[in-house]
């Protein structure tokens, strides 16, 4: 991580992508239907990316994230991390979910953060405790390390979940609308904190959201998906400052104007 941080000051594109998603079609079964969630989606995530999957509900962005998480096998195409195909869920791709109940209620904040490190036998108990405390401090919850999750507010729970994922120092963080269930003020604050953390640690994150504003704030690269089934619409670099508003309008236009190529046309 430290090496990439140093490299980042001069921005030549790193040669090797960390995550390669190629022509991925994902399907899942409900009781009565086989649903195609994404259709031939491909993208590459490089180290240090804050890569956003943006789209309205039904565009398969969460399903795509589950695919990268290893919970779902693509029917066609491939998902590779560091060149190796993803077979099953694993602690090299830590997930942060939207739901507050992702923390284990029977463990304190500190134990929650330590648990994945111990369960995956990554660290000794002492090392896990040290790392846990350092990341809990990074999300500003050191005073709450011995508290059980039910005593925390929603925003604090999400901070713990982020600390827990980051303490594993995974290859890539997978965040599934982590701030969607928070109130607007807390959400704004958490977005800023996430960016500060990124400045500090330089992790790689694949971040799912349906909010254009959040995509522009959090991401450096945005993949825009269209719904039913999810297909790629555009891949855009995010901009800060005054141009952000224009970008927001542009993405809004993309998502809310219907223009589909006719099926059967050569692509």
């Amino acid at each position, binding site marked *: 991580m430290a090496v990439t941080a140093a490299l980042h000051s001069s921005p030549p594109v790193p040669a090797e992508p960390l995550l390669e998603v190629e022509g991925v079609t994902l399907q899942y079964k409900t009781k009565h239907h086989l649903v195609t969630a994404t259709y031939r989606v491909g993208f590459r995530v490089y180290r240090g990316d804050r890569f956003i999957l943006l789209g309205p509900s039904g565009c398969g962005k969460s399903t795509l994230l589950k695919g990268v998480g290893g919970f779902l096998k693509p029917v066609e195409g491939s998902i590779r991390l560091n060149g190796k195909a993803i077979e099953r*869920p694993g602690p090299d791709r830590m997930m942060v979910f939207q*739901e507050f*109940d992702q923390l*284990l209620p029977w463990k304190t904040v500190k134990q929650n953060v330590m648990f*994945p490190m111990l369960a*995956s036998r990554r660290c000794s108990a002492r090392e896990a405790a040290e790392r846990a405390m350092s990341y809990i401090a990074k999300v500003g919850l050191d005073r709450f390390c011995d508290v059980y999750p039910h005593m925390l507010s929603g925003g604090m729970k999400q901070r713990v979940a982020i600390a827990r994922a980051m303490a594993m120092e995974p290859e890539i963080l997978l965040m599934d609308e982590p701030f969607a269930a928070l109130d607007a003020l807390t959400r704004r604050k958490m977005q800023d904190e996430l960016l500060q953390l990124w400045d500090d640690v330089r992790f790689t994150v694949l971040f799912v959201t349906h909010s254009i504003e959040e995509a522009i704030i959090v991401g450096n690269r945005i993949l825009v998906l269209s719904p039913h089934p999810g297909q790629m619409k555009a891949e855009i670099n995010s901009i800060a400052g005054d141009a952000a508003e224009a970008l927001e309008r542009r993405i809004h236009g993309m998502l809310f104007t219907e223009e589909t190529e006719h099926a059967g046309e050569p692509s």
Partner: protein
Amino acid sequence: MSERAAILPPVRPDFERRTLDARNIGEIERPLPLLERLTNITALRRFLLLVLLAVIWQAYAAWLDNPLIFPTFADTLAALVKGFLSGELVSRTATSIKVLLMGYAAGVALAAVLTGFAVSTRIGTDLLATLTAMFNPLPAIALLPLGLLWFGLGNPSLIFVLIHSVLWAVSLNTFSGFLAVSQTLRMAGHNYGLSGIGYVTRILVPAALPAILTGLKVGWAFAWRTLIAAELVFGVSSGSGGLGWFIYENKNELETANVFAGLFTVIIIGLLVEGVVFRAVENATVRKWGMQQ
């Protein structure tokens, strides 16, 4: 419509102000009056209710004046104290509880195997669902004749019916607890690379603990009443019988106060296990974790 369109709220000036220091506002919270605080204590209310019931009992029995049919509360209490002091009730209770714990432990262990199987395979799920649907409604005591036939008079047939009374209640609750574990927690567990036994013991069991504890409590109540009933039927084995047999013997000797004392002991032990043992376990786990209020 046009008239309504003309209505506009007045334009008011903005203002900003500093909030006052809360200490200067005056009283923010005040303790409730003593009587109200006392009546808010559940244990106290229930105790008063018990006292009332005891007074009614004493009055009615004194009025009836027939200790063979209905001894007074004071007589029952005296019999209870005497039974405990002489050690007879103690040894009878110990006999019962020893058998009970053996049957309970065996039942819980079998339930763990059965639900472990059910949660890992579909055929196991079907097996558990079918077996519980068949056997859960069957009163354990109805199996006692079969137990006597297979295992003879004595503890093994008692344990046999105890297992039956515990197994289905615990399995059913544990399994439905497993099914209720949220998808997010399951995914989180898999995300850490947990699978198989580790996944069950480190994610599913603690997450389903409220349901498991309910199952254990129901199983305990079933087992306790099954045991007393079974002891009433044949009771004595190897010299000293349990509490059920104590009740039965004293009924034959028309020591009605002792019958009541025996029943009292059954109730007290039931209350102690529910109110002290299980409550302590709950306080140390599911309540502390905020999974149960």
